[in-house]
């Protein structure tokens, strides 16, 4: 029962921070709310027996990526922007309707299934095991991902040259 309470509290924080990110006019605020959301998800990871991922979540997402966002926001000086309501009406209502359709569909599905699923035995998720899986079963995707990063780097380099020229 304690677990459920913890889950609910965290879920409320996660959903709340997401909503705040969505509705903040100030982009910096949005970013900060998102960091909170990521941190909450990191806690979920710990609960879900994934401590290593939790650490990565904090360092990479909450740390590196979000800092990058903030940095760009500051650089461009575009903190103040239009809010959600600046969107065209048709767009707003269609989006909201579609959101409800998705939520409704998944909710219906969950209700239909009922809470009958059985929890499997906990797996060993130490970094060593993760590394074994990563490098034994996913060697090629790993390499491809490396190339992807390389391409991103080269692309950024070219773009930055263009930016300097332009």
């Amino acid at each position, binding site marked *: 029962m304690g677990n459920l309470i913890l889950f609910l509290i965290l879920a409320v924080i996660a959903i709340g921070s997401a909503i705040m990110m969505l509705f903040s006019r100030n982009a910096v605020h949005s970013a900060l709310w998102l960091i909170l959301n990521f941190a909450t998800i990191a806690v979920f990871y710990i609960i879900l027996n994934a401590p290593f991922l939790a650490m990565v979540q904090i360092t990479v997402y909450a740390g590196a*990526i979000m800092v990058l966002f903030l940095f*760009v926001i500051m650089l461009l000086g575009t903190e103040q922007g239009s809010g*959600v309501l600046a969107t065209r009406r048709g767009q707003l209502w269609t989006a909201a309707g579609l959101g409800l359709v998705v939520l409704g569909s998944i909710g219906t599905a969950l209700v239909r299934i009922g809470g009958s699923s059985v929890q499997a035995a906990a797996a060993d998720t130490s970094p060593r095991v*993760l590394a074994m899986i990563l490098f034994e079963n996913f060697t090629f995707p790993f390499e491809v991902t490396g190339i992807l990063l390389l391409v*991103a780097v080269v*692309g*950024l380099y070219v773009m930055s040259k263009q930016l300097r020229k332009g």
Partner: protein
Amino acid sequence: MAVTIEWYIALSTILFTLGALGVLLRRNAIIIFMSVELMLNSANLLLVAFAHHLGDATGQVLVFFVMTVAAAEVAVGLALIVAIFQSKKSIDIGDVNLLRG
């Protein structure tokens, strides 16, 4: 009452929908990007939850790939935004409509 996988599916769905709404409703390109990150995170959460549910660490490994792609995407995306800002002096996506037919 134990926290079963269904709860996590529900939470993940809500976060995903919120992220999607952010993409659809905001006009600030940076916030749209943040919303995309939120959607990716909801997917990650679900992956980890299923890994826990099935007792198989492979799901956690997939999260690594998602994170990598996300990082690359953010890097390129933000660079694009900077580039757009330089030419348009705005990051409002309403101002970028070169594809208009």
